[in-house]
């Protein structure tokens, strides 16, 4: 968390190296004083203090917008500070932040209006943009136009602010251990060591642009390849030693964007192992070439070719007249089905999809374009889809070494339905999974190990009226209300909030006491629901996962 300011260092200190603060601007003095002040005051002074936009951005994530009185100061605060001063300030800020977090915790969810409430966007995020601009202008100015995120789009910045503030209140108790830190919202505050390719990848991972266990693995490896290519060993260290730490910066950044998948972890482990095994005597260029080759080989062996092998052998399981049920959008299942289709087999595919990611849509589109007979329904239709199924193909996020399948949430329901069909005839459940997704971790339930995604994704995004382009009575009346609202203070607020509430009752869920939204990413399917795991090393029962994993890691 202290990184942002450290990062800011080079840019500002480069312009004015080691100057003892030429003209103490009026806005800067309070922040200087607050270095000594312990808790509360530094909080207000903190926001004008950011001497460059990067750190301003980083802070915006972690704390509410400043009071509007401080706002104009921010632009003038671009004063170069000496590195020492910056460091000092960073320390003070860190202390303040900690204190504030503590304060937040004490206040809990009830005291929303507490001393921290910013002037602007507390209870009316989307409808009063002008106010927000005035109130939170200081920090928002620094924000580059980040494309609005799916789901949490409209509430945007203020949403992020509030989110942090009330996190303690809104986390589901059973999953308390999984609410680590918020996923990173911007690239601000990333260490300077982080390679641009990795920066970009981080955002893609966060926004589910790169989604799916193997896609994430490949993308990570490719990004790391570019990191290795552009890497030069600093003086006085060896490549084997320094590159590992250099990579770990990239990894830390990626993991703040989205927790790393098992496949990513396995790939990174393999890469680190190969870096460590580089002979210190080899010249740098040769070593880098070896590493790049290693990455290429790894992708080819573990994923590209493995996928082909799996698709080939899984496609053999498909027979004419089959009805194949699959869940969400696994790339390997897609490949399998396409391979089977190419082999001239005639079968029907029934895709079951789930909110909020709707990954199955992509799969449905791809399969339909290839000319397959596709049926599409959501989780609520599982029991209907499974009724005439003859096989279930599932993708995996990981296979745990106790043979359980760790995959997109909802997979377990599909597997269970396949095994508990009313007629008593069990539908075979086949999991397609590369061995790179095997892990030595074990899981009994879906609660100890899981990933919590932003619950705002569950709040329905755009109302359907926007799509049709028809003017909707609510939106037409809104501008008038809005103008009035900005001119005549917060009197129109209730009507404003009721208007937004009508779009989705959950819009203000964070302000609603006792209401929690839970958006977990994965669930664990019991091993007894899985009949076969198709890997590039052959088709196995789920109990063989641990053995294969041991074999493949010992090699």
């Amino acid at each position, binding site marked *: 968390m202290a990184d942002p300011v450290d990062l800011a260092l080079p840019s500002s200190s480069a312009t004015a190296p080691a100057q003892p603060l030429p003209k103490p601007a009026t806005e800067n003095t309070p922040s200087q004083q607050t270095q000594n002040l312990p808790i509360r005051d530094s909080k207000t002074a903190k926001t004008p203090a950011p001497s460059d936009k990067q750190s301003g951005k980083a802070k915006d994530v972690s704390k509410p917008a400043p009071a509007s009185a401080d706002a104009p100061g921010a632009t003038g605060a671009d004063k170069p500070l000496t590195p020492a001063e910056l460091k000092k300030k960073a320390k003070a800020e860190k202390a303040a932040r900690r204190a504030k977090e503590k304060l937040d915790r004490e206040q809990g969810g009830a005291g929303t209006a507490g001393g921290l409430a910013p002037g602007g966007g507390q209870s009316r995020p989307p409808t009063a943009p002008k106010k927000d601009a005035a109130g939170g202008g200081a920090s928002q100015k620094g924000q580059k136009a980040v494309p609005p995120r799916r789901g949490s789009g409209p509430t945007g910045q203020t949403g992020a602010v509030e989110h942090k503030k009330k996190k303690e209140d809104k986390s*589901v108790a*059973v999953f308390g251990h999984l609410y680590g830190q918020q996923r990173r919202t911007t690239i601000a505050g990333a260490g300077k060591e982080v390679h641009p390719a990795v920066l970009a990848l981080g955002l893609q991972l966060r926004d589910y642009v790169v989604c799916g266990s193997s896609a994430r693995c490949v993308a990570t490896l490719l990004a790391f390849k570019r990191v290795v290519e552009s890497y030069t060993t600093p003086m006085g260290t060896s490549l084997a030693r320094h590159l590992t730490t250099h990579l770990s910066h990239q990894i830390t950044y990626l993991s703040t964007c989205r927790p790393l998948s098992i496949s990513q972890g396995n790939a990174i482990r393999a890469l680190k192992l190969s870096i460590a095994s580089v002979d210190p005597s080899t010249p740098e260029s040769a070593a880098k070439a070896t590493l790049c080759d290693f990455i290429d080989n790894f992708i080819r062996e573990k994923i590209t070719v493995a996928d082909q092998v799996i698709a080939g052998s899984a496609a053999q399981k498909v027979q004419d007249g089959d009805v194949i049920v699959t869940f969400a959008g696994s790339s390997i299942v897609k490949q399998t089905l396409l391979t089977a289709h190419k082999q001239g087999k005639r079968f029907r595919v029934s895709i079951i999809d*789930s*909110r*909020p990611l709707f990954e199955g*849509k992509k799969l*449905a*589109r791809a399969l*339909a*374009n290839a000319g397959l*007979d*596709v*049926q*599409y*329904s*959501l*989780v*609520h*239709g*599982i*029991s*209907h*889809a499974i009724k005439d199924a003859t096989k279930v193909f599932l993708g995996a996020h990981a296979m745990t070494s106790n043979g359980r399948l760790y995959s*997109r*949430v*909802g997979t*377990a*329901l599909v597997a*269970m*339905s396949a095994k*508990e069909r*009313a007629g008593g005839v069990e539908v075979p459940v086949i999991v397609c999974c590369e061995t790179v997704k095997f892990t030595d971790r074990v899981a009994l*339930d*879906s*609660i100890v190990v*899981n990933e919590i995604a932003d619950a705002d994704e*569950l709040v*329905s995004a755009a109302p*359907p009226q926007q*799509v*049709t382009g028809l003017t909707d009575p609510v939106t037409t009346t809104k501008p008038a209300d809005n103008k009035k609202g900005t001119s005549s203070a917060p009197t129109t607020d209730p009507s404003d909030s009721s208007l937004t*509430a*009508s779009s*989705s*009752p*959950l819009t*203000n*869920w964070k302000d*609603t*006491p*006792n*209401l*929690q*939204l*839970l*958006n*977990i990413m*994965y*669930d*664990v399917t019991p091993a007894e629901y899985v009949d076969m795991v198709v890997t590039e090393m052959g088709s196995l029962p789920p109990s063989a996962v641990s053995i294969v994993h041991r074999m493949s890691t010992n090699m």
Partner: protein
Amino acid sequence: MPSTSLALTPGLGSFLKSLKTHPVDTSIENLISLLKRRQIRHSRSCATATAYLLRHVVSVCKTSDPAKLIERVQSVGRRLMAAQPREMVVGNVVRRVLGLIRDEAEDDREAEFTLSEAGSESQPQTPRAFDDASLPLDRDALSLRAEGAERSSSRPTLQSMFSLLSHPDADHSLPSTPGTQSPNGRIPGHGPSSKDVKAEVLEGIGEIIDELGQVDDQIASYALEHIHSNEIILTHTSSTTVQKFLVKAASKRKFTVIHAESFPNNHEATHATVSGNSSGDDEHLSFESFQKPLIALGITVILIPDSAVFALMSRVNKVILGTHSVLANGGLVAAAGTRVIARAAKVHQTPVVVVSGVYKLSPVYPFDFDSLIEYGDASKVLPYEDGDLVDQIDVQNPIYDYVPAELVDLYITNLGGHAPSYLYRIVSDHYRKEDISF
């Protein structure tokens, strides 16, 4: 009951309003089209509309001859059921009204008979006392005895072995048992005029309507027997019965509710129920909008997507489900997604409790599950933005699931808690055999 704004949109509110002014045939047509267009949807709305319509039908019926009344109600009932065969409550209400008329007719005949023979005035008090203790209009096990005896005296078709045994002395011990159907307001020594049959029937229908209004509260009164402190309860859809049940329990106990959002068909209502700010534009919600949400009572509500049900089931103590209708074998026709939830609960050995009014209990046995399932608007599954896909793929949006009886551990109706295997008994208490398929 309905707010004034509702009169504009076709639905239960506007229908009940128009019932007073429109002629009967128009009203019948009106309800048929409402049912066909699915502008009246939820079980209770359908039941209420049917009951009001039948009351209207009976009241304007010129004849007072029970046979003619039955014929008339049957013909209306057939048309209503044909309009929406999957709303089984419509048929249930029609059957109950038919049963009412039959009972009244038999009572009448019997009364004529007994009045001349025995002329006892005090005897009817016994079955009435039974009925007063029980819930209105629900013939419980106690009054069943009298009823069985009574039927056996009038009809040769016996319903149970029990009544067979009690046959010989039925005429002496219970000479006239008229109080079973409409306990209140019956004058013990009423004259056998057939005018009264109609009045009794109308009164009986009024009681059915009352029952429909009270059923959720009656079910909720059992809540404290079933929910203990610190429980984690999983539920699904925005069923009012379930909400009232939980709210009642929340008045005394602290627990946590996990609410699956039942995505494409009912998620908006569920979101509104959960967050307590209902938009009020939905007919179903407007009746309940005055009800406090659970969160206002200090109950933590966790909203989850349907897909997370399996993941969380291991922490759930009890699953409480609402239903669309209950079949005589104990199976359910409930909102789509209920089956996997019940199945997941079974896998995790979590008890599944179904709360449902007796009016949802249908005498139909499910021989063809598929015929019970209704499919809904595909655009809810695949929105307009993905319109290009619609041509290429087959989008399915089932509205209901059939949940087999073995997945349900307990039914709570307004009569109390029952095992699924006991339901057939309640069915036979509520519907006359001859009306099951009319």
